[in-house]
Structures are given as C-alpha cells and as structure tokens.
C-alpha cells in the first residue's frame, strides 16, 4: 500500500516571551492590578488551571463541535494554510482543532477519560505543552471560519480556536503582540494607546482639511454632541496612522446633511477581545461604545470600515457585555448605501475609472451579514467593478486576520501561505482591491508587497469620497 509521506510541520516553535508582561507587573498597571488583564506566572499550576477553565467555560455549541468531528478531512482544502502547504497535514483545520479536542476528550468525555489512548485523548501536562498550543491557535490560524462552512458535520473550528485562545489568554500564555495590544486597550480604551488630546487634535485637523476641500466653513466634526442620528465610531489606526478616512466620512456626512457625532470616550469600535478570546475585554470595549450611544441618546451606532470591529460591535459585543441591543448598529457602508438610495449624496462613477475588485472580509461576510451591501455601493461609484473568485461568504482570508498582524513571530508563515491570496488577486486583473476592513487593508498590502503584485488597496469610503459630487 502506498503511504504518502508528509512534509515537515509549519507550526512555528515560538517560545513564550514575557518581557512586556513582566514590565506591566513591575509597573503595576491598573488592568493587571485589578485582575482584568492576566499575566503569566512561572511555577503556577497552569496546566491544571487550563483544565479547570475549560470545564467552566465550555458551552453547548462548543461541546458539540468537539464531539461531532468524524475525522473525515473535508475541511483540509478550505484552509489557505493547508492549500499553500499541501504536504503538511499539521496545517489542516482538523489537526488544529484536534489539539483542543484531545484535551476535551481527556478531561470531559467518558471514552477519553477511561481509555484515552483509544481516542488519542491527552491533556497538557506543563507550560511547554500550553506554549505549543499557543503556537497552533495563535500562529497557524487566522480564525477565518472557512473550514466551518465546509464541514459536513457543522463543526465550528474557528470558534474552537477562539475558545482555546481565551483559555490561554487567561493564563498569560499569549504572543507578546497580543498582550501589548490587550494592555493598551484595557489601559487607554483604544487599541493603540491614543490619548484623548491626540484624538481631539486629529479630529480638528481633519475638520480643517474638509473645510478647505469643500470651501465650506460650516463643516464640523462634532464630539459628544447629544441627540444625534448617528454616533460614529472608528478604528484607532485612523487617528494614529491614516486619518484620511475620517476626513472622507466627515465630508460625506456633511454633504448628506447628517446629524452626527463622535463620542469623547468609547470611540474605538475595534476589539482585541475577539482575537484574544477574552470576553471580558470584549465586553469592556464594546460596552464603552454602547454606553456612549446611550449617554448621548444617539439614534444609531455607525461603525467605520473594520471587519473585526464590525463583528465585535454589531454582533458579539452585545452578548459579551450581556446587554440587549436597543440602538440599530450598522456599518458605515450600509449608511452610504442608504444615502445613495435616498439621494442624499450624488456620485460620479467616472471619477473611479481604474478597475476595482472587492475583497470580502471574513468577519463581515462569513461571521456577519454584509455581502451585497458593499457591492451595491461600489457599482454606483466605480466604472469597472469585477468580482474575484471565490467571493462573498466563500472568499479567502486576507491572511492577516485573527490578530496576526500584531504577532511578528508568525509573519513568515502567514506570508508563505498568502500565496493562495496572491494568486486570487492577480487573477482579477484589477488595479485596485477594495475592502471594508482596516485589517484587510494591511493584510492585503503585505501580500501585495511580498508577492510584487501591481495593485493598490482602497476602502469604500475612499471610492465614495472620490466620486462624491458637490451639493447643489
């Protein structure tokens, strides 16, 4: 019988780096002192604690995902990690899920408890085992959920990955980038430690830019204005690195005659709790947004273009914060679609002549509800819109998802497997790829640079802003 030999494993053997965590403990920062942000303790019975957390946190849907897998391997070819490394069976979703499944079987499942070897059940015994698990669930998966949609049984591997990340985060066994961003979001309320002064100054700067562009001194970027129809929330990246998207939004809101505001606190719609698996952090950050909307009596919450931010603020955040949704919560792309449908803004598609393709973000199209909405907008603001293949719910991850952009140690593997994405982009022949996620912007930019593709990344706000016609 011909047995095919597998190649070497791509799972990155990154050690646990705790320098940031040590500094945080030494400085006794608030979130650590108050026990909200967990740090790694050498010498603690971490493996034992891991199992206790597993028992306490497991939900019905997770338990079923753990027991329903029949090891058929149909998920394998839906995963870009395996497609790019077909000789490496450790890159398949089933293998990655099995790393937590085996623990569940050993600890909670009757066959696994009585005869573990029979079902390959085994629990982690030491911190090295937990660190290896960290490298699997943080480093070899972007939690894109493509495997979930391709499983004949309905096993939700992406959810299992997030669950496992959450257990490890509680023990401080995380990549350093994950700790840093979590710390910043806990301590400052936003993912990039932007101060209130910096935030307000940047908004004023962009207001001045839009006033100049429209030659209209009445343009405002209101902060903390009550009783508005729209509460706009943004990605800290827009303040720290590229505020052009804020200017675009302000311009469009102004032309549309919208009654809108940004909040002074609770303006960060991104949410590292989604990536680290930390529901507590998720509840805190999303809760800030919901509180701001309630405090300012806003009609609806509008989320700027960010995939994981959309999923966290529109969907998961309410569950994490145990808060029933009261205000409509939507993506700014939906808002734009409404403005176009209602004639509140007019656009000239000839201002966007370069062919554009659209990259559906995992957290928006697969774990969210928006597939047709961005397309409806794009078809009105571009001359040449073309689809990539596959697209919509079946699109491939930008490869930078799941927080991978913050984890330097996994970058070489991520760029290696991005070959799948590069091929997909090139095949469109488009000069621009549009996406409604800031993470994807950077993820795709990395792919484009690494594979030397002649393409620029744009967002929907960029294209609409370019096509926007002055009010009559």
């Amino acid at each position, binding site marked *: 019988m*011909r047995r095919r030999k597998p190649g070497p494993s791509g799972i990155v053997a990154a050690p646990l780096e705790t320098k940031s965590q040590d500094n945080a403990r030494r400085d006794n920062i608030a979130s650590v002192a108050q026990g909200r942000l967990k740090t790694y303790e050498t010498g603690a019975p971490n493996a034992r604690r891991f199992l206790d957390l597993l028992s306490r946190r497991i939900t*019905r*849907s997770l338990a079923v995902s753990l027991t329903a897998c029949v090891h058929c391997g149909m998920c394998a070819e839906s995963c870009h990690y395996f497609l790019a490394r077909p000789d490496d*069976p450790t890159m398949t979703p089933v293998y990655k899920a099995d790393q937590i499944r085996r623990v569940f079987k050993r600890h909670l499942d009757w066959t696994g408890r009585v005869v573990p070897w029979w079902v390959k059940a085994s629990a982690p015994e030491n911190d090295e085992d937990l660190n290896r698990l960290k490298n699997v669930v943080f480093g070899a998966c972007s939690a894109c959920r493509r495997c*979930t949609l391709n499983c004949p049984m309905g096993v939700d591997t992406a959810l299992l990955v997030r669950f496992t990340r959450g257990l490890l985060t509680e023990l401080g066994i995380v990549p350093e980038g994950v700790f840093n961003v979590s710390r910043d979001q806990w301590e400052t309320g936003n993912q990039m430690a932007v101060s209130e002064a910096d935030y307000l100054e940047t908004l004023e700067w962009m207001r001045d830019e839009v006033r100049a562009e429209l030659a209209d001194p009445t343009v405002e970027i209101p902060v903390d204005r009550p009783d508005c129809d729209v509460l706009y929330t943004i990605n800290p990246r827009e303040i720290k690195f590229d505020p052009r998207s804020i200017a675009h939004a302000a311009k469009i809101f102004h032309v549309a005659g919208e009654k809108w505001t940004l909040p002074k606190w609770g303006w960060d719609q991104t949410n590292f709790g989604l990536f680290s698996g930390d529901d507590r952090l998720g509840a805190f950050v999303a809760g800030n947004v919901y509180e701001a909307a309630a405090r300012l009596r806003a009609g609806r919450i509008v989320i700027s273009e960010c995939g994981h931010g959309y999923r966290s603020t529109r969907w998961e955040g309410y569950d994490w914060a145990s808060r*029933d949704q009261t205000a409509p919560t939507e993506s700014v792309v939906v808002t734009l679609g409404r403005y176009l449908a209602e004639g509140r803004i007019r656009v000239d598609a000839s201002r966007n002549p370069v062919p554009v393709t659209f990259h559906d973000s995992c957290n928006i199209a697969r774990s969210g*509800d928006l597939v047709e909405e961005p397309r*409806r907008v794009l078809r009105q603001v571009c001359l040449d819109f073309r689809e990539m293949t596959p697209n919509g719910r079946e699109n491939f991850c930008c490869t930078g998802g799941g927080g991978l952009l913050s984890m330097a140690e996994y970058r070489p593997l991520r760029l290696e497997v991005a070959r799948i994405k590069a091929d997909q982009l090139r095949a469109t022949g488009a000069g621009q790829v549009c996406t409604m996620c800031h993470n994807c912007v950077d993820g795709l930019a990395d792919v484009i640079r690494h594979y030397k593709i002649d393409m620029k990344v744009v967002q929907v706000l960029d294209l609409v802003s370019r096509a926007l016609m002055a009010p009559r």
Partner: protein
Amino acid sequence: MSPLLKVLENEVQVAALLFMAAVYALRLVWIFRFRLPKARTFPAGSAARGIAYSLMNVAMPWAMESTRKKPGFYVQFVIFHLGVAAAISATLIIPYRPALFENEVLVRVFQAVIAAAFLMGLLRLYRRLANPVVRLVSSADDYLSLVLMILFFAAGVMAVPNDYRRAEWPLVLFFGLTAFFLVYVPFSKIGHYLYYPFARIFLGRALGRRGALPAGSIRGRGAEREAGR
C-alpha cells in the same frame, strides 16, 4: 430456526436497543447541561431558515466548496450511509417482517446496496491509511469503527436472503454485530449521528440569525433590514 438465533434476532436486539436509548438519553442530558448563551442582538436574518438550510446541507452537495471540489467523496458518503440504512432496516425486517425478504428482487436490491457500501468501506479504510491528512488525526477508535462497519456490511450481504434453514452463521454474525454496535456506538465515533443534528442546528441558528446563511438569500434580506431600521 434454532432458539439461539430466535433470541438473538429479537430479545437481544431489543435489550441492546434499550441500552443504546438509555445511554443516548444520558448523553443528551450531558449535552444540555452545558450552557447556551443567549443572543442579544437584532437579527439580520432568520434563525429558523438558517437551521433548515443547515440541516438540508447533507442533501445539497453544491452548497459547500468542499463537496463541490470532491464530488467523489460525497458519492462515497451517500452510498456508505445508504448501506447503513439498508442494513439497519434489515435488522428490523428479518425478525418482524420476514415475508418481505421472500421477494427475490428486494433481496437483491438490499444486497447490492450493502455490497456497494462494503466496497466504499474498503475505500475509506485505504484512504484513512494512505492519506497523510486523515492518517495524522485518526485514532484506534476511527479504525476499529470502520473495520467493524466493513464486517457488518459483509455479514449483511450474506444475511439478507434470510436463509436460516441452509446456514445460520451469517445471521448469527449479522445480529451479533448489530447488538455489539448498539452497545458500542455511544462510546465511539459512530456516535457522531447523535451530535450531527445539534452541530448543524447550532451553526444554522447562529449564522442564520446573522444573515450569513442560507447563502443567496441576501437580496431578500436587504429589504428586511431597511424595514427593520
């Protein structure tokens, strides 16, 4: 018919079935003891439609990229499980409606289906040993379950003619294996049929509510959304 076979075909099966039902019930209690967090958002689609779509997934090979890319695997899955259905039906027909198997054509049809499933079983065993992806994750439970199913199908082909006057051993083997399966299934991977509907329901509900499933219902949802806001 010998008293052994008579008891094996009837009382033993009933006992084993009752045992399986009891263990199944315990397993359901175990599943339902895990909490199911409540969703607190405005839906963007229908949970019920998502559930229906998700459960129908098994009959829609075009719905998933994996089954579109590997239609052979899907065909193999269908034949294998048709064989399971035929074999299980046989375990009920033989003791309670033996007249049905006096119909030569029906017997041949059953034999053909179960024999095809037997071949699929052999193919699956080969795949589980030769394909590195599946081999890496397969356990003793996976292998034994498959080997037993292959034996079960082989016994089924021989047992279905129900010719106990000529030779009883195929029937003894068939019903013996069935009783064994009924007791073994809840503790093995074959128990997946218990979890399968729940997994599909949970996924269908979560993504249906979110409007991500069913695929292709997006045009309708746009209008729902505008109205809802």
